[in-house]
């Protein structure tokens, strides 16, 4: 039943998309072996999927397992394909769509370098305090702040620092975990 497809007057895959793209966070449990990141990233580029953010680190040293958090934007049908295609990769153990499965916690860390003197410097510290950003390095003309939180909070912090002498920013990308007692 092709109820979800509207005639587009064209053919094959060129059908009018009916659903809007959604932002989803996926958690992927993999064997930490050489080339695994290239497999994941290669799959996204080969099949034309988006990656908004990708973080990876070994989370179980004994078994050599890594958790990869991928944030992607896609329509529901494509999201399903992304999950299934990831599961097809041999070293992939599990793929969870955290967004679909309910509330999840998402956090990101940023290091933000701000340079300035005089009144700006005081204002910088005041805002950092409000955002609970830590000063991790300081010189007479600069600070480096470490800030953790939702991406939106980090975006806001960066926006406020912009006029006060923002020099550069590095961000880790998003790590996410499901709420409650269950595990992946």
């Amino acid at each position, binding site marked *: *039943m*092709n*109820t*979800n*497809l*509207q*005639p*587009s*007057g*064209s*053919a*094959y*895959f060129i*059908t009018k998309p009916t659903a809007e793209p959604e932002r989803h966070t996926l958690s992927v449990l*993999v*064997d930490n072996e*050489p*080339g695994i990141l*290239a*497999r994941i990233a*290669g*799959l996204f580029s*080969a099949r034309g999927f988006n990656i908004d953010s990708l973080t990876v680190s070994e989370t179980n040293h004994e078994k050599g397992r890594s958790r990869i958090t991928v944030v992607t934007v896609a329509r529901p*049908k494509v999201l*399903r*394909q992304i999950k*299934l*295609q990831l*599961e*097809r990769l*041999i*070293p*992939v*153990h599990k793929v969870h769509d955290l967004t679909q499965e309910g509330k999840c916690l998402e956090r990101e860390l940023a290091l933000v370098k701000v340079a300035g003197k005089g009144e700006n410097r005081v204002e910088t510290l005041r805002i950092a305090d409000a955002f609970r950003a830590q000063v991790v390095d300081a010189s007479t003309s600069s600070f480096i702040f470490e800030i953790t939180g939702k991406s939106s909070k980090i975006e806001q912090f960066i926006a406020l620092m912009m006029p006060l002498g923002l020099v550069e920013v590095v961000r880790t990308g998003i790590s996410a975990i499901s709420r409650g007692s269950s595990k992946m």
Partner: protein
Amino acid sequence: MSEQMSGAEMVLRALKDQNVEHIFGYPGGAVLPIYDAIFQQDDIKHILVRHEQGATHMAEGYARSTGKVGVVLVTSGPGATNAITGLTDALLDSIPLVCISGQVPTPLIGSDAFQECDTVGITRNCTKHNYLVKKIEDLPRILHEAFYIASSGRPGPVVVDIPKDVQFAMGDYYKPSNESDHKSYKPQLNGDLGAIEEAVNLMIRAEKPILYTGGGIINSGKEASESLRELAELTGFPVTSTLMGLGAFPAKSDQWLGMLGMHGTYEANLAMHDADLIVCLGARFDDRITGRLDAFAPNSTKIHVDIDPSSIGKTVHIDLPIIGDCNNIILEMIRIWREKTNQNRLSSSSVWWKQIEEWRDVKSLRYENSDEVIKPQFAIQRLNEAVKDKDTYITTEVGQHQMWAAQYFQFNEPNRFMTSGGLGTMGYGLPAAVGVQVAHPNAVVIDIAGEASVQMTMQEFSTAVQFRLPIKIFILNNEYMGMVRQWQQLLHGSRYSQSYSESLPDFVKLAEAMGGKGIRCDDPAKLDDAIQDMLDYDGPVLFDCRVSKEENCLPMIPSGKAHNEMILPETKDIGNVIDEKGKILV
């Protein structure tokens, strides 16, 4: 129990333990230790190819005709890159291959050493899985795992890249006791019983059902073809198949509608379009099958049985997905169908079968024969007639001749038709025929070829001569890249840009120069005798069958059209059929 041996010896030992009898390969610097190990044993026979692409297609033909894993051995660098086309072909058509490649010694990896390439990097997206073996301790496990991954679940190619120092290193060989106990790879073989029961309920209620089968039936083993026949017999449903599934259901059956899709029969495509229930068994709703997606089988409920979950719902919405091995699920369907009391075999006098008979009467495969020139369709029919009582395997290249073979040759058994479906690799058929003949030395193995495709891997004819493999290359020579020419006629005002096969070799002399036999025929009256000459000759034959030059492959669903908008054989001016939007499609 473990034994000390070198990495190269482990390779041969693992192949032996996997019951491999033949491998297809080409030596080079980075695989010399393995070739030395080959020299010192008699269990595994090595077929020396002329180009590594040929080795991969031979292994594909070998695998597809036997159900076993095809094994390829190539050297580093160009050896590996030459194998890429065949690996990709095997991935798209789900053919189990293990390709062992040599690599420069581990200390040199990444230094742009002589004949170095990043084999695992290059093959990552054209294999089911791949490995770079950095330690001798990992080699036995990886070799056996490669066979398990290649052959289980949805089959596919696996590359094992072995650096030369690992081939020389000594280590303990062992055969893993339970290779199917992989930590993360666990293909689902048995379908959900509730879903199968629901499927049977839908089948019992359906008024206009159709079984749409594909290569998954072939991959599921000969038993799956038996089960399919039983299911069709039990239900009375009409059966159609993709290119990859031909032979799983006998073409001689009354319930057979012929192949579906772009060059499928009128009855198969119309039945798909009008069906109220499509039972897809091991096929994947490829774009050659569906045509215009938004007009594909608009009023049908769709059941999709597939071992690969990602195939389900990829392009077409599926109402009832069933994940698992085709044979297991068909057997369950049969069992549940028999248990039901309200089951009712679809009678051949039903409204649906009457409708199908009307479509059949259109005779969409009709063509105008000629006394003067050989029509390609006629040539295939005569070939079919000549071998119908023989143990025959057919391979093809890619193009018009491939579609004509699918349309006019009758396949009644599985594993008898080897063709490049997904990737559409010209040059597949000749080496594939070599691989099939290696596996079935006494069978008749024919490559139905085109004069353009066959030149892409022509040199493997010499392999056939060397190993006394009596393959028959039946070239439908129309002096055009026929399918390209047909599309240029369809879409580009018959401006035949670069599609004329200029400066063709004299195929008869070419065959003789390589040590085989050449036959030429351009007279329909002499065709039968010429085919008989070909079959009687105990050795490789190149048959140059001169056919009419501008024959079109019809019927056809033009790009951008639906199943019920087919071009039938009497359409003279095919150049006006496709609209602007359809032209951008392939």
